[in-house]
């Protein structure tokens, strides 16, 4: 963690990694509110599978940084119960693949209890989990199931893609009275960025325009934001001005920001690391078709992962995922075709 004094007005700019930002967010939340605790596999003595909680056990002790046995349904369900019981639990699940063992507790309990009880219960629970491919971890540690969770009414789903969002979205999620699932893409943990000097991060429910543009809307989230921005820079060099939207919140979707962008640019490409069939990208395309049809100059398009379980070898793993060149190519095709049509 580097802290550089920028000027004499007591304003500092910290440069943090995504991992450090998330750790700082947990740390601050725990200092601010004694109801907050962290539970999960290896969050304590080991320091977290992705080292997010490193050092927190020393600071807060094993009563608040709780190492859980390999019982995903058990400790996620315990998080739901503790939230009902007046605490503000943060439950860490090692990867989205493991979270499937806790799906019963998330979908059948966390998401339903409020409604099923006629609005009597509140479940202020945060569940954090790693997601995505890129570390050659093969077919049981690398998938993107954000869309599965985003399908379920009763929970909220966040995908912080920037270090600033990693820094500030957690406290918003903890302040929310409903269960929030946070997806942390494994390829983001080492990213570093200077932090904004204030905590005026956009509301967690809002999508953000990460680059303004006029000819095509590139819509994405989480681990694909970096690639999409890279593609937008290449497009810029080739004379195509793309707008990049970071969804940030996958449920509820900020459709207003998406529609405003698409109505302006008249073309849309959705970049999503999930498999194409039943993907979030499919949902965005459907929404755009329903609401922006008469603005469109080209059919909505998706850049998703190839539909195979993620393979181990690097070249094959990379072949599955959306690539910068593909995003550039698809965007150029849409812009060119759109021009031909109009």
């Amino acid at each position, binding site marked *: 963690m580097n802290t550089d004094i920028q000027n004499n007005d007591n304003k500092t700019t910290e440069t943090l990694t995504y991992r450090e930002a998330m750790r700082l967010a947990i740390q601050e939340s725990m200092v601010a509110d004694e109801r907050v605790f962290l539970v999960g596999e290896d969050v304590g003595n080991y320091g977290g599978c992705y080292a997010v909680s490193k050092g927190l056990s020393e600071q807060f002790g094993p009563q608040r940084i709780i190492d859980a046995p390999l019982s995903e*349904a*058990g400790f996620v369900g315990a998080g739901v*119960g503790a939230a*009902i*019981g007046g605490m503000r639990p943060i439950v860490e699940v090692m990867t989205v693949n493991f979270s499937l063992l806790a799906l019963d507790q998330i979908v059948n309990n966390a998401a339903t209890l409020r*409604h*099923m*009880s*006629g609005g009597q*219960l509140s479940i202020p629970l945060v569940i954090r989990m790693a997601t995505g491919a890129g570390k050659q971890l093969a077919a049981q540690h690398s998938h993107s199931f954000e869309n599965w969770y985003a399908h379920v009414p009763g929970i909220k789903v966040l995908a912080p893609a920037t270090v600033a969002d990693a820094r500030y979205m957690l406290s918003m999620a903890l302040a929310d009275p409903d269960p929030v699932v946070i997806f942390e893409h494994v390829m983001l943990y080492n990213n570093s960025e200077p932090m904004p000097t204030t905590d005026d991060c956009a509301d967690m429910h809002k999508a953000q325009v990460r680059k303004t543009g006029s000819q095509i809307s590139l819509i994405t989230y989480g681990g694909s934001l970096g690639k999409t921005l890279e593609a937008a820079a290449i497009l810029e060099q080739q004379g195509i001005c793309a707008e990049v939207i970071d969804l940030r919140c996958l449920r509820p979707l900020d459709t207003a920001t998406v529609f405003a962008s698409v109505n302006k640019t008249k073309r849309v490409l959705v970049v999503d690391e999930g498999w194409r069939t039943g993907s979030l990208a499919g949902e965005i395309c459907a929404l755009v078709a329903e609401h922006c049809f008469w603005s469109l100059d080209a059919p909505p398009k998706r850049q998703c992962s190839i539909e195979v379980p993620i393979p181990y070898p690097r070249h094959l793993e990379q072949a599955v995922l959306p690539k910068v060149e593909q995003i550039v190519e698809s965007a150029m095709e849409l812009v060119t075709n759109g021009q031909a049509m109009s």
Partner: protein
Amino acid sequence: MIIDNTKPHIDKAHLHQLLKQMLRIRRFEEKCAQLYTQEKIRGFLHLYIGEEAIAVGVMKSLTKDDAVLATFREHGHALARGLEMNKVMAEMYGKVTGSSRGRGGSMHIFDSDLRFYGGNAIVAGALPLAVGLALADKMQNKQNVTVCFFGEGAVAEGEFHESLNLAKLWQLPILFVCENNGYAMGTALEISESEQHIYKKAQSYGLDVRQVNGMNVVDVESVAKHYCDAIRQGAGPCLLECTTYRFRGHSMFDTQLYRSADDVKKWKDKGPIVKLKNWLQANNELSPHELQQIESDVAKEVDSAVAFAEQSAFEDESDLCLGVYTEGKI
């Protein structure tokens, strides 16, 4: 019925109260079965008839701050916990005056004021919640007990094992109550468990365990009281296995091909209500007049609950999407 000195103070009034509580549940559910055939109540209806002694016996040791979790067969637990019969019946009807505004129905009765947290229809799904509620109490230094009822079918689920392990590991104030009625829907314990003594499974996780005749309300009350007292004093989680039997089918759709009418009759003859009634009568502690008075009080309560449910309104369809998130508060 043997009453020894370690048991709670038992007098005539107390026994009459236990009998009345069990009869409230029995008559309420008999009425529900009747209303089901009239299509006033729909969906699944799982009756607790035959098992009343367990909810009634255990609930006697709880304070208003203790938490209770139950299964889809929870009408009895809700009534024994103190939910108004009117609200429970209205919930069966799906009316807005129901305990969950009609959103839950028979399987999802809740009352957050009474810390009655359902009504969970995923077998073993409430056990991790109980762990969390007890953890929250412990972290907040509250002296509450969390009681979690479940059937023996839940023991085959991984969540049972995960929860018992977590509860003991974290030394949580939970009383697990296994209502062993011998059948998980239609699957007999003998064909679903390699080890059929459920208490032994709990023992292997280090819990203090006791097996009790779930047809004897006084025995259940006595052991539950012993455990609740111990848990409040920091004993950690305990498990009470109550042997029992359900006299009706699993739900209203059950044709009961998996058991004989003879077996059902044998168990009915030693049912919790008949057992207590016979003992009281044999000891001249229940006159025909007293029994009649109890029955007529209960009948009145059931009749007025039906009238309340009948007269209540259904929730307006325009409120459909409220209550999914806190922003759309009902």
